[in-house]
């Protein structure tokens, strides 16, 4: 028991975070986070509101760039690439690291155009390629049978759960390798949530998934690894089953058994 490290070291991580500090203006939001994300596994980031889990997630595809006054130090490596390099092609990075948001945000376009958006902006114009990508992505997102007859209709006519799965299909259409999910089910009803959770488990075969969630049962259901963040510190990181049954840190134990559980 005593030789189990608080932060599980990961062999050959696809994404490696070392000593990551993030500041919103003068206030520090992440206090030196170091961890690795293994390939083709689902990693859940949990913790109370304001602990920095979404901020950490947004560092991974540089979405924090959009927020004024954010400063990041430390290293973030995707394979051999330094993500924090100011000269990095952010566009290319975001094609490799897709993202699904808390609130489903389809474009006011047809279902088809939503799915191919990422490909189109990357310059793909071949109809056959696009058609294939649409079917493949929608099938992967478990949406194909529901929408195959209404591809030309507006995506805004879909139900909430369908929209969120469409957003997932849209993210995987560009074949990203890594998918970041920021509380993807928090705006969905239980049935839609169950479908998205099943989808996450299926996608694990082909993609590395990092998911931020408020819902601890969800983290327990879908993830292989769980990281617990508290006030900008990574408190504990380990296999989900172990972390939820035998937390090493008293803070983790307080959190998973406490008010939020």
């Amino acid at each position, binding site marked *: 028991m005593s030789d189990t490290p608080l932060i599980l070291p990961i062999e050959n991580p696809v994404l490696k975070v070392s000593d990551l500090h993030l500041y919103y203006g003068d206030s520090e939001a992440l206090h030196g986070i170091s961890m690795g994300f293994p390939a083709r596994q689902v990693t859940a980031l949990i913790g109370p509101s304001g602990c920095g889990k979404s901020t950490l997630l947004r560092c991974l*595809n540089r979405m924090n760039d959009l927020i004024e006054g954010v400063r990041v130090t430390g290293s973030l490596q995707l394979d051999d690439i330094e993500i924090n390099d100011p000269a990095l092609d952010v566009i290319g990075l975001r094609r490799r690291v897709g993202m699904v948001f808390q609130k489903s945000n389809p474009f006011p376009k047809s279902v088809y155009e939503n799915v191919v958006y990422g490909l189109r902006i990357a310059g793909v114009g071949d109809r056959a390629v696009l058609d294939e990508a649409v079917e493949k992505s929608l099938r992967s997102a478990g949406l194909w049978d529901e929408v195959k007859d209404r591809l030309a209709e507006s995506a805004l006519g879909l139900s909430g759960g369908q929209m969120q799965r469409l957003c997932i299909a849209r993210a995987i259409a560009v074949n990203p390798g890594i998918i970041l999910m920021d509380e993807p089910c928090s705006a969905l009803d239980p049935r839609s949530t169950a479908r998205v959770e099943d989808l996450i488990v299926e996608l694990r075969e082909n993609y590395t998934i990092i998911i931020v969630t408020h819902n601890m049962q969800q983290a327990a259901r879908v993830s292989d690894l769980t990281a617990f963040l508290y006030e900008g510190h990574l408190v504990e990181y380990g296999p989900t089953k172990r972390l939820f049954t035998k937390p090493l840190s008293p803070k983790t134990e307080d959190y998973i058994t406490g008010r939020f559980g």
Partner: protein
Amino acid sequence: MKPSTNIKSPGFWRLGEPFVWLTGAAMALVLILAGGMLVVVAGNGLGVFWPARLEQFEMKDKTVLLGAVTQRSAVRNGVAHSRLQVKVGNRDLSGADFRWIDADAVARTSAPPDALLVERREFGDFHGFLVRSATAGGVDGLRADWLRVRAEFAGVAELGKAVSKINDRMEGIRRDLLRLRYRNAPESGSAIRGCLARQAELKVEFDRLVAGQTRSLEGLRRHTATFRDAAGREKEIPLTDIVRFCQPNILGVGGKAGWYLEKVWELFFAEPREANTEGGLFPAIMGTVMMVFLMSLFSFPLGVVTAVYLREYARDGWLVRVVRIAVNNLAGIPSIVYGIFGLGFFIYGVGSGLDRLFFPERLPTPTFGTGGILWASLTLALLTVPVVIVATEEALGAIPAGVRHASLALGATKLQTLLRVLLPMASPGIMTGFILAMARAAGEVAPLMITGVVKLAPAMPLDGNFPFFHVDRKFMHLGFHIYDIGFQSPNVEAAKPMVYVTTLLLLFIVLLMSSSAILLRNRMKKRYTLGSF
């Protein structure tokens, strides 16, 4: 203990009923004001072309008047009695074509069936009776003569077109000569000699055509008919001067409708006559529509691009805030100030500069250095661009951040996000601003008066001569037309119907342009904002 409020019957004040009434009343007031104006304009404007009954008034002092009653009013100076305003026409015979008469002074009123209403090219309408025409048979004979003369007259008008074409070519050669001489080409050189030779050739052709035209016109003017007014005075009118005529007292509804439609057609497609108080408004309609079109061409892209920069690219600091305040205040500057700016900057600054650069040989006669449709449109574009900027900014700001993030997270650049997602989503809002801008531009008069609008434009900005679109030309405008004929005309009574008609037409054009834009906007709305986020 008594409860402090009565829940069962909360009462008039507690439910906020008075506030509902207040808001409803405000809306009703606005509707009544706007509707009232429309009713006045439409009521007076729509009836103008309907041929009125010609009544013959035999006065107690033995004079006789023939005319249409245009107004009645009660006068109270001691005894109550009423007065009539009668349009008697015959400006050339009696001096004034409107007359106020006392109802008490009328001995007898009748509606003679053979009373004629003759619309003439000069001196307004003639009211009277036919005495004789070349072909016997009363009014039918007159009509046969008139139709024949009119057909021949159309031939002469064709000749006139040929004359103006030659005129244009001579003008071109005159400019070539000016340019050659300005560049100090030798007088004996082939270029100048060629020009002079062609000029002489054209002059001969021009003189020949004009002489022929004058001869045929003189010949045509010999065909006349003799009429008599109500007082018995005879008047010989050349048939070429007659635009149309009818006997309104015996004309059936169908005939009157025909007359009406003919006049409406004339209004839309003919040139004005008689210092703009008669005839058509075609040049003014074209001028207005083209000016608005040109204005949109400048103001729309400029406004949208500026708003995109302000909202999407500029860092939100004090400078942007100052710019935003300035833009909002631009909309409140009196339009005449824009006109003066347009005159000083566009016409005297840019226009004169262009003249010095490209047309120095024509100076001191200005080409672009004087009012024209281009400068008027640019001035109005300046005036309407704040509306477009504000509307576009609002529309862009209303787009949820999630949509931007979704696009960026998929690897889109900012520009791609703008072009593919944000602008389409903002388009209904942008269109709203555009509609407001267009309506404002169509109704604006003051700045136009000093940047290129004229009472009567000799040539339209769009015609069949190369390069077809002459942006340096002065133009006519419906709004200015209203001001001009309503307040600058020597014969205000005669111009009054035209003022109503022109106002109605301007309202109609604004309505047409706005509603087509609204239609477009609704289509965009349906396409881009179905459901909610």
